[in-house]
């Protein structure tokens, strides 16, 4: 009985380790390849699993041969502005739904919830036309505007706002606090954890977004990292400079991985909460 239990435990650890290797291996491989020199990479018919002569020439190549820095900067600008505008849009909306009483509140909120079910693919066609008609292709506005709204985050924040006891609002009212001040000084600080979660999720979403940027930009000056990677793959470096390609991939992946390592708990918590309620 005891032996059987031990065998089971060992099997469980083996299973978990195998999958862990499967997950980590691509990351290891990209890191490894990115520090192999072009020559040594191409001379290995059977690739080495380790290199004793790491080189950073590929990173230099990645930043000089293609506009990686430009893609990076674009993505950074896109992510920051989109996230900021999103906050400006969703915080007041969540506040109105959670704290204020007005006619038609329930109808509007139900409508909002219904919009949560609409897949992006349905609306992206018209958005493409709209942005094109507005002459906003290959601009940051064109990239950002349709990416701002997120009904789900309004919903998440509203739920959180509603958990703040009524008494706090009443206490503030008696002291003559305006709604705006109450929102800024009380609600937002109290709900900071949720807001941070939303920001992180949005940043991940922005950093990885591919479809919309691909539709709306064909000028390299406005490429985001995802499009940049695709561009690199198809036209950059000559198709065969795999180490340089991997160096670019490492550079692109790094910010989010660092973010994940810092905010590991918050991100996992946020995704699982977002997941179960969405």
């Amino acid at each position, binding site marked *: 009985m005891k032996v059987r239990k031990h065998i089971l435990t060992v099997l469980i650890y083996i299973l978990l380790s195998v999958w862990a290797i499967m997950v980590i291996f691509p990351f290891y491989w990209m890191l490894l390849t990115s520090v192999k020199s072009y020559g040594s990479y191409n001379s290995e018919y059977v690739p080495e699993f380790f290199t004793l002569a790491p080189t950073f020439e590929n990173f230099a190549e990645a930043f000089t041969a293609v506009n990686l820095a430009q893609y990076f900067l674009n993505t950074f600008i896109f992510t920051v502005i989109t996230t900021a505008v999103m906050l400006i849009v969703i915080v007041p909306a969540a506040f109105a739904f959670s704290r204020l009483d007005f006619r038609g509140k329930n109808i509007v909120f139900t409508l909002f919830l219904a919009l949560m079910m609409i897949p992006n693919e349905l609306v992206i066609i018209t958005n493409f036309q709209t942005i094109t008609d507005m002459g906003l292709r290959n601009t940051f506005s064109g990239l950002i505007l349709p990416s701002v709204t997120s009904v789900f985050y309004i919903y998440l924040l509203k739920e959180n706002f509603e958990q703040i*006891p009524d*008494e706090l609002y*009443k*206490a*503030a009212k*008696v002291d*003559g606090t*305006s709604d705006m001040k109450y929102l800024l000084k009380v609600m937002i*600080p109290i709900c900071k954890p949720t807001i941070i979660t939303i920001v992180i999720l949005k940043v991940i979403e922005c950093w990885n977004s591919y479809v919309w940027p691909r539709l709306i930009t064909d000028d390299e000056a406005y490429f985001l990292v995802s499009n940049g990677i695709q561009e690199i793959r198809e036209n950059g470096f000559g198709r065969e400079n795999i180490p340089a390609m991997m160096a670019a991939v490492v550079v692109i992946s790094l910010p989010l991985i660092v973010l994940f390592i810092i905010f590991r708990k918050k991100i996992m918590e946020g995704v699982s909460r977002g997941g179960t309620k969405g």
Partner: protein
Amino acid sequence: MKIKLEHLTKRFPNRTKNKPDVIAVNDFNIEIPDGKLVGLLGPSGCGKSTALNLISGLETPSEGKIFFDDDDVTDIPPELRGVGLVFQSYALYPHLTVLQNITFPLENLKGNKKLSKEQMRSKAEEAAKLVQIDGLLERKPSELSGGQQQRVAIARALVKRPRVLLLDEPLSNLDARLRLHTREEIRRIQRETGITTVFVTHDQEEAMSISDVIVVMKDGVIQQVDKPQTVYDDPTNLFVAKFLGTPAINVFVGSVKKGRLFIGDDDVLPINGVDDRKVYVGVRPEGFIPDDNGGLKCKLRGVEVMGRDTSIISHHYAFEGESIRAIVSSEDAPDRDSGDIRFSLKPGKVYIFDKETEERIYPASGK
């Protein structure tokens, strides 16, 4: 500051459709004298918190008027009324320190009332000193005990020097020992500041112990407004009699016939000035005297010794409820705990209420 409520009424639409409105506060008329501590007492859902919210201005009345001294404040928003409010849950801002919590109301002052940082701090320290939390100013609410949080809430309410202090069930979230202590504190602070104070509670003992005046409420209607002892000794109706006093008053179904009071068929007391009719008879626990010749014949169920006093638990077929509780001094207690027991009643501890209206008919109102 004197508070006067005139025909104050608050209706809420019923949650179930097509039902009449809920009247939380029904035609209030009271005058709260300057500098007094008034307890608004009633069971939960009787509208006492709504009444408090009306005074604070958080809710607007459906009808009636509210005066602070001679100013009509009915349509004045809460922040301009000069009220301080303390909640049952304290409602401290969890992300702010004690000091920041206390200065929060001051930061809202505008125009020529605006204060400098130093002025705010000194005012906050003064308020903190008053409630004896001046050593805790840099802590967050989560690092304080319930009693300390309560003090912070009171300090926050007092820092603006309000004309009226309103306390909504301020002691309910504290444990029994702290509750005793804190209510003495509230009394002390109120005396020191002299601010007219209204506090809401469902605990009659709490209300009795610290109020100058008690307002007893039921279903949105004021039942009685009096000094604590008067409310206890001189209840206007069966509800008030039942609500005040621990252990509660014992209520029997009885009748008055030809100048005699009957409980069931037991002839218990002579009664003057009451017409023959069906009545409720209320007897305070201390109104029973074990007496082998007494008129009230009960079944003994048990005896609880409490040191100085003894509770006699018994039952009578005309009793409204589970068991009669009589409190007698220990030497008068029976030395058995079953069988029949007879009581005679102290006339001053017996109240008679009309069976229909439940108004008190005996003793006739002293006023």
